[in-house]
């Protein structure tokens, strides 16, 4: 979105409030919802991509070393990846410092 939502005027909206900027949901950073983060034990990862498939946010990507990691800008900390991982290599760790 070119402008934050609370600054858009009614004239700037498209007819029918259609959103024509594709992929602008990436501007909505859901990582702030997270109270726990997924931590991966790289050595145990079997690269099955289950976490990638199950993540409701679609925020898991392949890291340089070949294992899979969540993008913490968007990860809500739901823990589904940890629950679904067949190798049990993902642990949810509290965000509390």
């Amino acid at each position, binding site marked *: 979105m070119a402008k934050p939502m609370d600054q858009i005027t009614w004239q700037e909206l498209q*007819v029918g409030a259609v959103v024509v900027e594709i992929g602008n949901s990436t501007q909505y950073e859901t990582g702030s919802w997270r109270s726990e983060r997924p931590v991966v034990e790289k050595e145990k990862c079997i690269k099955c991509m289950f976490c990638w498939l199950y993540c409701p946010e679609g925020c898991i990507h392949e890291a340089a070393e070949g294992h899979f990691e969540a993008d913490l800008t968007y990860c809500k900390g739901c823990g589904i990846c940890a629950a679904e991982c067949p190798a049990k290599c993902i642990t949810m760790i509290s965000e509390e410092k």
Partner: protein
Amino acid sequence: MGKVRKGVEVSIAIADAVAQADVDVIAAYPITPQTHIVEHLSEIVADGELDAEYVPVDSEHSAMSVCCGSAAVGARTFTSTSSQGLALMSEIFFIAAAMRLPMVMALANRSLSSPLSIWNDHSDVMMVRDAGWICIFVENGQETYDNIFCAFRMSEDPEVMLPVAVNLDGFILTHMIEPVEYEDDDLIRRYLPEFKMKNALHPDHPVSMGCFGMPEIYTEAQMNREMGVRNSYPHIVKAWEEWGRLTGRHYRPVETYRTDDAEYCIVTMGSYGETAMEVVDALRAEGEKVGVVKIRLWRPFPLDEFRAAVLGKKHLIVVDRAITFGGQGGPVATELRSALYKRDGAPTIVNYVAGLAGRDVSRKDFRSIITEGRKKAEAGDTEGFTLYGLRG
């Protein structure tokens, strides 16, 4: 189809018009409350005379949902319903307008339950008065046929992009056989350009429709919608003017009959207008200075044209065909009172509600409404409304 004058049931003439308009998608619930409109369309499509998708759905809610989907990809879309059907449709009916999806509905106005009724009045359309559809009222078969084309032209105008409901009185018009002049297919093609929808759904240029709206943006979205409805007005008039140039049949948002020197007027919406004109002719012959004001465009409400038509008259006798329970009068009278509030030269308004659930309103009844209404107006008895013909 070539230009021809036919004796035809109005519902059939509508279906023929929809076919001549070369629609792409028709979605309708085929069972009560329904008319011959979609029944005949299903025949036209099944016989291969119209290349369209005919979707017989499981409910009116689904019918309107199909219409939204079809309009969203830029297909010319038509549906038709009545009363309880419209009620079931209402959730998606509002969404169609909010998402600015062009489509045309022939709304055969009928009463809402209960008591269970299948007959005519305006309670169904008044239920969705505030949805943001363009609402046109017609008085006879010819006007219905003509306005199907005008409605598509208005609806799909890039400056409008709104669904349009052509309101015709259930049974009184839908089941009437009368002469209708069909226009030539070439004329229709000239009048109705191909529908090209901006921001239509397409994999090559994706968009999001009907998004979540936080309080930060909802107000702006509603103003955008309000201005869309309001700004459609000149384009509606233009669509009618163009039709008038091509066919010689002219339509205006507010139409008047023998009002120039009239001291008072009867105000109608829908097929009432014709009987009212007939009675006004008779009263004129007796020396009464009375005229008829007919509201053709109900939404967006033609405020300026209405005021210009009636300011300076002494009284208006407004005949409604629906009740606003616990309100101050029928929906039309309430609108008109508000339009004239504190205006110089504003006539007083006497309101009758008549013809509920198809109760016949004859010439004799119109005569009583006009003469009795005038007496009430002169006596200053202008509050609320009177249910005409009520026993007890």
